[in-house]
């Protein structure tokens, strides 16, 4: 029981980290970036290939994975979002174009096999692999009958630190003020001399770096790296998290992440694994029906 709750907190941290990136883009650009889960996956895949194929130390590889994720965020911005903004396309257009980009990312990885042009990126096709145990530091501690793995503790610490510093940046720095100004009203922000397009690109890079980091942590802690970890494991759950917390709200996404981890743990204990897999969607559906602004959402009228 206590072990289950502990796991709920770990998986909740990953959900939260992933969802913060999701919600950041929604809050500032007002679009839903469905390629976020593909970036999450690529963060893990790139780190894995740096460790296993290119024989880099884990922390170097992780840094590479995060940087690559940030770059992929820029790809999302320039390929899928900026052209639509130039045309002043409706909000849903961006949903569709990022779905297209996610399809491309996932299937490129899925088709990478030894001998294919992308064998330097990924060699295992559609299979799931795990980080080699001797290359990734992951000590196991036993405290009071509970099993604690270093990777999971690291997840907790890293995500809480990151989310606190994100909160600090958003609230007290010039960049954070610019971000919030753009979120509030892009046109007014532009009139005040903020380079809105640059802020949008920064948002995507930041959000994708967080998403990629969440992917790396997921891959290490759950020993699962495959082309589908983003699409199947966190995409819709991330949506459930930001709906629970209120779309666009960063503290909401954090609390929503932990709430979902907890809900899933309870569902697993009471009803078993099938229900655990579905409870996120049930929560998503019910939340939207009962309280679409989420627990912490504001600006309900215009967003609906």
């Amino acid at each position, binding site marked *: 029981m206590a072990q289950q709750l502990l796991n709920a907190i770990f998986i909740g941290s990953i959900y939260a980290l992933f969802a913060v990136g999701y919600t950041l883009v929604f809050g500032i650009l007002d679009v*839903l970036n469905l390629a976020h889960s593909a970036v999450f996956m690529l963060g893990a895949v790139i780190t894995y290939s740096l460790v296993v194929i290119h024989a880099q130390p884990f922390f170097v590889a992780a840094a590479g994975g995060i940087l690559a994720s940030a770059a992929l965020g820029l790809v999302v911005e320039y*390929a*899928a979002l900026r*052209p*639509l903004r*130039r*045309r002043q*396309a*409706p*909000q*849903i*257009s961006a*949903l*569709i*174009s990022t*779905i*297209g*980009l*996610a*399809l*491309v990312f*996932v*299937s*490129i990885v*899925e*088709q990478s096999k030894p001998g294919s042009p992308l064998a330097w990126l990924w060699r295992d096709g559609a299979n799931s692999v795990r980080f080699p145990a001797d290359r990734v530091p992951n000590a196991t501690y036993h405290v009071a009958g509970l099993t604690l793995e270093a990777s999971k503790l690291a997840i907790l610490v890293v995500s809480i630190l990151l989310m606190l510093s994100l909160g600090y940046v958003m609230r007290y720095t010039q960049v954070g003020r610019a971000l919030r100004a753009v979120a509030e009203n892009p046109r007014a922000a532009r009139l005040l001399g903020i380079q809105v397009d640059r802020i949008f690109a920064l948002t995507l890079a930041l959000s994708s770096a967080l998403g990629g980091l969440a992917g790396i942590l997921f891959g290490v802690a759950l020993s699962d790296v495959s082309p589908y970890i983003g*699409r199947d494991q966190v*995409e*819709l759950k991330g*949506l*459930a998290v930001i*709906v629970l917390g209120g*779309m666009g709200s960063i503290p909401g996404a954090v609390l929503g992440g932990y709430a979902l981890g907890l809900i899933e743990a309870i569902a697993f204990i009471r009803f078993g694994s*099938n*229900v655990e*897999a*579905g*409870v996120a*969607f*049930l929560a*998503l*559906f019910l939340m*939207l*029906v009962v309280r*679409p602004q989420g627990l912490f959402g504001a600006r309900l009228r215009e*967003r*609906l």
Partner: protein
Amino acid sequence: MDFFLQLFSDPVGFYQSHELLIAQIGINSLLAISIFVTLFSGQLTLANVGFMAVGAYTTVILSLHASTPLVFNIALGALLAGALGVVVGLPVLRLRGVFLAIATLGFGEALRFGVILNLPITGQGQGLKNPDADPLGGVVPILVALALVAYLVWRLGSSKLGQAWAAIREDELAASSQGINVPLYKMSAFVVGALIAGLAGGLESHINFFVDPTEYGTTRAIQVLTFAVVGGISNVLGPILGATILTSLPEVVRQAQDYRDVINGVILILIIVFRPQGVLGGGGLALIRPRWWPRQWTLTRARTPADA
């Protein structure tokens, strides 16, 4: 190239050697029409695959446990999907834009994980074997159903109902101020979409030996949306064209079979960026206008799926 050569030189032989592909195009066209109906009324809903699962499971469960005729089974499946559409639509259709899209996506997955994988009668994760499957005999019924549905939806488009849907899509507030009962018409579009998706599910279960719960996930829901977006939603031929192009693409370009999703994704991005009105649908390209292209032919305000 052989594909097109045979299509034009030997249509009968083409039909015989590609019956399964044609059946799949028919099913996908029906699904694309079902999402077209809701898009036409200005709503992006992604619950179609869930309704399709209802149709498929109802049909197969009935043919396993009851000795009712197939037509009855498929019809009942479609009707149940429609009825579920009313139940789901009541709370969900108050939402708009991305919220509606997410809620309907959540409904589909909740149905799959919460209900289908937990009921003994649906075979849970194992799926159901269909003893009466008839892969080749199912083609003609599918094409007949497609023709019928396409005709009905085309006629609906110009009827009072279709006019009301179009009015809601263009401006919901203006529509309601003209005395259009917006919730009622939105619901009717949603339910018609659910009926068509349920029908497609029932028909598809008849040509497959197996009903597999993994078939009815988000991936498929997004695929269906792709059909409608690529084809365009100016009229009912758009989604059919989109489904036909994207379903037959891997057959046409054999080498590209592995990279099908890469191609699908790139097509989707290019269409939504440069031709948001779809392949069918008037006007030129967005964002690009060659010097010799008359200005009045460029896209200013086309009817796009994204107007939801």
